[in-house]
């Protein structure tokens, strides 16, 4: 770890929407509010109308249990909800129903950990707790929040289930925070409680301090990607102030993702201002061992365990396995593919992994897509690897198929359409080699001094044939012919 950050302390509060629920936390309004007309997924409960009564969504409790188990937290046997009181238009009731781990209250679960790996060093990051709460409404401003003459309120999001995951202040760099979030995202995906690729499905507040100085809390970091950037900026801000001999104050700051700076909010919020007290409209919840056991039984294999199994079952390296299992959809794709072909062994397992993590992942990244949204099937990749290994196409050509493969076109059809089957016929290759040697006397001369010129000549051959020549045979034949020419040239001298 670079010494640049050794005195930095970071703790994260991550809010995750349970997007895979069908209804909100305390009412049966449809959870799927994205892209819907404003204030159409609302009812007296999530609008906070007088006399309405909340009722807890049973599946929200199960989802929270899943996550608690996956993170290794201790689930509290009994807890109740609290009212967190504040005035803000995003909460129609003037309070948020949340959990509180003081005043006799308990979180949903305590402890737990997330293991990260950075520069091939493992580190266990201790969690403090996780708890359930409701999402506030969405505010729409005319222009910026500072100048908007009013706020428009859409209560469709109000009451959607959030799980807050609070870490201890145990991270020492923005990179550690990034890896923490990467692992957390993976675990959430495996538990199938939320799709964190959905816009706005996670929000992060970060507590940041330099050892021995006051901390600031940066709010409003609205995507995992922004966290590393916001942290780097805030750390720099604090260090610059200290360098100039100024002292830091404890404050809440707002991450402005357009200007990419943090702004002091000049508001002093104290916990007692929230006047937490038990929510009397909801009765306590008791979680039995039976219930936990049932949820545990349904829980799929988690990424850590899966990576260990991949090393054993497919003889992949620790490095490959850990990257491969990170995205559950990719890992499922991998297993479906390699298991479907009986002739595959360790070499093909590794090949299949390389394709998925290399060209396919690159395509997904470049096109801002995820594998389940494409038409690529595990079988296509099996066919592709078989064709390469049978010598029918070259690996280089195969790479040019990726775009077409993602549309679901069968490999054989792509090969036929492209006319790019591999050329392994000796006579055909010799013809190309001779042409290239004749056309490039300069490079041939150069070869006398610089044997690396051979690569340039092979490149010319490939260019002539759209890369269809078998690279091994071409190299052998080129070497043979160029040696012959060189011998002839020197005897003539």
């Amino acid at each position: 770890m670079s010494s640049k950050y050794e005195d930095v302390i970071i703790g994260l509060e991550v809010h995750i929407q349970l997007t895979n629920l069908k209804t909100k936390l305390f009412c049966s309004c449809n959870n799927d509010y994205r892209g819907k007309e404003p204030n159409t997924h609302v009812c007296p409960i999530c609008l906070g109308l007088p006399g309405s009564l909340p009722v807890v969504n049973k599946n929200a409790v199960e989802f929270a249990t899943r996550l608690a188990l996956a993170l290794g937290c201790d689930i509290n046997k009994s807890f109740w909800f609290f009212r967190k009181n504040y005035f803000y238009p995003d909460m129609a009731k003037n309070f948020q129903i949340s959990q509180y781990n003081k005043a006799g209250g308990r979180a949903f679960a305590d402890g737990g950990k997330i293991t990260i790996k950075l520069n091939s060093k493992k580190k266990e990051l201790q969690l403090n707790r996780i708890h359930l709460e409701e999402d506030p409404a969405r505010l729409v401003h005319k222009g910026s929040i500072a100048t908007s003459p009013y706020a428009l309120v859409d209560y469709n999001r109000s009451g959607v289930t959030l799980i807050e995951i609070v870490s201890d202040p145990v991270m020492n760099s923005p990179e550690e925070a990034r890896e923490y979030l990467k692992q957390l995202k993976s675990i959430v995906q495996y538990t199938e409680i939320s799709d964190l690729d959905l816009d706005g499905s996670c929000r992060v507040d970060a507590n940041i301090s330099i050892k021995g100085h006051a901390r600031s809390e940066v709010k409003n970091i609205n995507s995992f990607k922004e966290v590393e950037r916001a942290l780097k900026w805030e750390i720099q801000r604090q260090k610059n102030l200290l360098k100039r001999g100024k002292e830091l104050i404890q404050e809440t700051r707002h991450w402005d993702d357009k200007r990419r700076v943090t702004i002091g909010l000049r508001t002093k919020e104290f916990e007692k201002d929230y006047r937490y007290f038990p929510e009397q409209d909801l009765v306590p919840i008791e979680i039995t061992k039976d219930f936990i056991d049932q949820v545990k039984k349904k829980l799929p294999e988690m990424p850590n365990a899966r990576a260990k199994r991949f090393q054993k079952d497919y003889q992949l390296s620790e490095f490959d396995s850990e990257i491969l299992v990170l995205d559950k959809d990719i890992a499922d794709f991998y297993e479906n593919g390699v298991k479907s072909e009986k002739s595959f062994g360790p070499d093909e397992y590794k090949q299949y992994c390389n394709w998925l993590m290399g060209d396919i992942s690159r395509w997904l990244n470049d096109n801002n897509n995820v594998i389940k949204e494409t038409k690529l099937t595990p079988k296509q990749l099996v066919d592709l690897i078989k064709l390469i290994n049978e010598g029918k196409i070259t690996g280089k050509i195969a790479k040019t198929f990726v775009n077409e493969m993602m549309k679901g076109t069968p490999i054989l059809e792509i090969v036929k359409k492209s006319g790019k089957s591999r050329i392994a016929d000796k006579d055909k290759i010799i013809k190309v080699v001779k042409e290239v040697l004749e056309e490039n006397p300069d490079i041939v001369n150069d070869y006398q001094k610089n044997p690396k010129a051979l690569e340039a000549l092979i490149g010319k051959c490939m260019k002539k044939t759209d890369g269809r020549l078998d690279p091994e045979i071409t190299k052998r034949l080129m070497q043979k012919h160029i040696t012959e020419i060189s011998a002839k040239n020197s005897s003539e001298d």
Partner: protein
Amino acid sequence: MSDKEEFSKETIDYLSKLALLDLTEEEKVKLSKQLRDIISYFKKLNDLDTSNVKPTTHAIEGLKNVFREDIPWKSLSNEDALKNAEHKKDGYFKAPRILKE
């Protein structure tokens, strides 16, 4: 802390701010006396030994785990949702600006 201090002017100012109430000076004086009386009445409870009594968190004891199934219902129409709102715009509720100058 004495009863008097508990409802000092600062405390009343603080409480009225949290409750978003604009109080006149007379109201503040009146309320601080009333609140002091209420608190001292409740302080009678301190005479009892409650060291072996579990705190009551809910008025109805024994009731627990009231859940509903995760099945969507029909929500209100936008028109109904906004029906009683005094300020609205384009299907939204309209609220005062967030940041004051």
